[in-house]
């Protein structure tokens, strides 16, 4: 059967694909289109059944999409792509590097002699927490996460890196500053923050592990995550994305520990972004599973 490929934005017919059958999938369409246009490798292509519709899933067949001989498919170029893993590694390695660089108190930023000024204990602890967090993320990216979607537009690399690297510099500049003021309530505040941070980091790791084990390697099967033997995963009883709950919790505790407004701003920005993601994920779960637990919220138990 024949399907014509129409450019989604301009409405111009780009080509007509003829080597298709009703059982061909969208992935097949992409492969054939790639043979004709070497520039548009499959990950870079998006096909829709309406000019402004959603991207069609790779495993959907033309028959299931009700596309018949002579119908149109709308094509959109997603732009050059880059692997998720590459982006993750770049965006997490940066904060580690930037933070530790400022931790050494370079003379070009803090002035000569800053390196020799005494540091409060909380400054060491903060550097340890920060490093722990990003080391953990790098290791998780390498060994724990399974990426269901292979690539993202290359612009995301620059966007994400400027966010993470920029905030790392902003927070590190103040926490490591020779004129840094330690928390008002002294050691109690520091240790409360530290313990909270570590618990939340552990919780975040537990959730990542649970999500990994939920989906066997190579499968695209989706399931509802439930608490496992690990007590931290009990958070699944309250929210759809406990990994974000713990992540926000960790940064809130870091802020408490350092008593630093830039850290609070980083927490808020992260919370906003994660709340948006959590809402999307929550909605997908509810749409996909009719038996999805009703008491679950998105990111904050009982609230949001």
């Amino acid at each position, binding site marked *: 059967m024949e399907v014509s490929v129409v450019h989604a934005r301009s409405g111009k017919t780009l080509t007509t694909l003829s080597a298709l059958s009703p059982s061909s999938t969208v992935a097949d369409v992409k492969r054939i289109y790639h043979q004709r246009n070497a520039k548009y490798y499959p990950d870079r292509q998006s096909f829709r059944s309406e000019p402004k519709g959603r991207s069609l899933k790779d495993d959907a067949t033309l028959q299931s999409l009700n596309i018949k001989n002579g119908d149109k498919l709308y094509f959109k170029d997603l732009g050059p792509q880059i692997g998720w893993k590459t982006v993750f590694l770049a965006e997490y390695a940066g904060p580690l590097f930037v933070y530790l660089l400022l931790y050494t108190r370079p003379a070009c930023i803090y002035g000569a002699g800053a390196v020799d000024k005494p540091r409060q204990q909380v400054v060491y602890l903060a550097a340890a927490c920060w490093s722990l967090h990003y080391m953990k993320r790098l290791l998780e990216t390498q060994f724990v996460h399974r990426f269901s979607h292979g690539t993202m537009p290359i612009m995301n690399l620059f966007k994400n890196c400027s966010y993470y690297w920029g905030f790392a510099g902003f927070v590190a500049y103040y926490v490591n500053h020779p*004129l840094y003021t330690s928390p008002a309530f002294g050691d109690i505040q520091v240790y409360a923050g530290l313990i909270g941070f570590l618990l939340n980091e552990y919780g975040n790791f537990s959730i990542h592990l649970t999500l990994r084990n939920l989906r066997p390697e190579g499968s695209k099967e989706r399931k509802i995550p439930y608490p496992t033997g690990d007590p931290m995963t009990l958070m699944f009883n309250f929210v759809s994305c406990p990994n974000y709950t713990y992540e926000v919790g960790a940064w809130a505790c870091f802020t408490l520990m350092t008593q630093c407004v830039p850290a609070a701003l980083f927490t808020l920005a992260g919370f906003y972004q994660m709340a948006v993601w959590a809402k999307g994920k929550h909605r997908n779960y509810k749409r996909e599973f009719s038996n999805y637990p009703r008491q679950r919220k998105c990111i904050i138990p009982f609230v949001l």
Partner: protein
Amino acid sequence: MAAEEQGEKKRKISPTATAYLVLYNVVLCAGWTSIGIVMVKHYLETKTYHGMYEAFEMPLKVFQTAAVLEIVHAIIGIVPSSVVLTAFQVFSRVFLLWGIIYSVPEVQDNIGVTMSVAAWTPTEMIRYAFYTFGLMNRLPYLITWCRYTFFIVLYPLGVMGEMSTFYASLPYIKESDIYTITLPNDYNISFNYSYFVIFIMVMYIPVFPRLYSHMIRQRKKIIGGQVVSKRD
């Protein structure tokens, strides 16, 4: 496109909201007209821009600050404009008025202030008249034409005025350290107001050409008629 969108959204707002908006736009139009009258009168009497700010200070503060309501209008959806864009436009002016002109009295007699307000005044008189007549579905072509034509001169004039006001304020801000937070403090953050003002000035560089070309495109669509819009 924007005009089409506005047409599509040709909003179903309640008669109360329409009445309120008409009232708001009439008052603001009258307010800016009064600023215009004061400016002209001052110039005719003194033949100089010096002392101009004192003459229009009060109505300018009232009517420029009232524009904050436009953000509220966009948020609650009684006008179709984008919240972000409106907030951006209103804040840049309100910031100049309160953050610079009010806070740094030394710049009040600078020609940049007169230039800015001379550009804002006709712009706002026409803009509020445009909305008012639009709400009543009686929009004379002349007003549409003015709205999409005067900006060609007024917009760059306003930007020049705003930039020179910012620039003139910098030495005084450095000297007085207003709104500046220095380390050490309990919040572990610092803020340098003069860097912030420089940052705002730098932001004009990418924003101005984009907004200006956007307005030019709007002009082609709305005044240039259908000739341009359907090329292919």
